């Protein structure tokens, strides 16, 4: 009989995720409540406009199906989730029905009441974005005057309510000289700063976001050093859990392997989740689940594979094949190698 009835450690989460991945249990699901947004960020990967959004009642049905399939962590994102008047109702319904929630928001629409309501949901994470240490830099990206101060106020309201947001900054040409100041500003607000060089192609496959990425020289000379720019291991990155333990659902119910992987698997207005995911998975999903590292025909011999954080969804967008090369991952691997070997520009 049992000697060790329960194992308790944070790394266990990774073990559980690996098991869910092996069993195709959608443990982590990203729910895109809307593509509408009150900001106009220049590099935003969402270049779609959907208006036929799932209603609150439809989301309730979807949430019930996800719980039945074993989902645990839900990440609500947009667009801007708070342009939906019922976003708190949806999140509260999910929480009360045994699902853990995280939120991605630009924080501009947060009020004291909303911040308290979010705190009561006990989110496992809340993320927001800041593109500069000054209003002029931030708003040159968001395109909306006043958005800098609104975002800072929203962050402060969350912190005051006991929620510590993670403030993400994508490194861009416009903010590359302000990165240490951004970190200082975020820390002074009581939040966590997460600066990264990862930029994704758009949902429709356009590479326009990359025109805003900084060059290597400006990164080397900006006074900021990524915490973990180095090798990801001799074997390179492992295949992700997209389509196995992870999936995403669009505002009108399309199911995808991941938010960055625009390979439609089905629609929840036409089929149930278990039909799309488990009972009748399409051929593409079956191939994704069977893929091994050795299938990455363009990557296995690459000298930079130890620096690579290849995204299968980006590879699908950029090469048309989920087992193909990702041009953006290749560029970023080159960048990481150069940042690691400072001076080798």
């Amino acid at each position: 009989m049992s000697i060790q009835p329960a194992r308790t450690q944070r790394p266990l989460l990774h073990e559980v995720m690996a098991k869910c991945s092996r069993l195709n249990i959608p443990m982590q699901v990203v729910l895109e409540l809307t593509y509408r947004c009150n900001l106009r960020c220049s590099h935003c990967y969402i270049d779609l406009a959907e208006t036929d959004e799932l209603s609150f009642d439809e989301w309730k049905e979807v949430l019930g199906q996800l719980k039945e399939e074993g989902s645990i962590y839900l990440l609500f994102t947009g667009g801007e989730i708070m342009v939906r008047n019922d976003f708190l109702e949806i999140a509260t319904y999910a929480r009360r029905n045994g699902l853990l929630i995280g939120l991605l928001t630009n924080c501009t629409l947060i009020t004291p009441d909303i911040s308290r309501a979010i705190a009561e949901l006990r989110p496992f994470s809340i993320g927001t974005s800041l593109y500069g240490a000054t209003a002029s830099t931030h708003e040159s990206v968001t395109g909306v005057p006043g958005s800098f101060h609104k975002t800072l106020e929203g962050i402060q309201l969350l912190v005051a309510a006991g929620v510590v947001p993670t403030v993400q900054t994508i490194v861009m040409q416009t903010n590359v000289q302000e990165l240490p100041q951004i970190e200082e500003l975020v820390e002074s607000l009581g939040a966590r700063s997460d600066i990264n060089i990862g930029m994704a192609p758009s949902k429709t496959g356009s590479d326009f976001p990359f025109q805003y990425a900084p060059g290597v020289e400006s990164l080397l000379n900006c006074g900021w050093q990524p915490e973990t720019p180095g090798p990801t291991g001799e074997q390179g990155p492992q295949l992700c859990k997209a389509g196995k333990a992870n999936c995403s659902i669009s505002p009108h119910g399309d199911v995808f392997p991941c938010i960055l992987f625009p390979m439609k698997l089905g629609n929840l207005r036409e089929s149930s989740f278990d039909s799309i995911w488990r009972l009748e998975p399409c051929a593409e999903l079956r191939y994704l689940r069977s893929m091994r590292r050795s299938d990455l025909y363009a990557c296995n011999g690459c000298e930079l594979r130890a620096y690579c954080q290849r995204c299968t969804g980006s590879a699908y967008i950029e090469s048309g094949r989920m087992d193909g090369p990702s041009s953006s991952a290749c560029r970023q691997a080159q960048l990481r190698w150069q940042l690691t070997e400072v001076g080798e520009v």
Partner: protein
Amino acid sequence: MMGSQIARAEDIIWRRIEDETVVITDDGLSVHVLNKTATYIWELCDGSCGPDEITASLCERFDVSSEEANADVKDIIAKLEQMGLLKRAAEVTDQ
């Protein structure tokens, strides 16, 4: 006759995955994995059973003596209570 019933703590998220159970605290950050025996006991801790009923059920389900089952039930419940995952329901008096 008095009986002390056992219930799962409120706001605990849990999912059965094969023959194990994943239990997550409501902040989403603490993860516990229960083995097969603990999972069997966990699923009986719905507020309607006490240790005696759980022991009897365990003997029926697994080929173990009542002494061994009783020791396991006591040990596992104590550990899960210590972790804050189980609680004693209000004492119930049988008529």
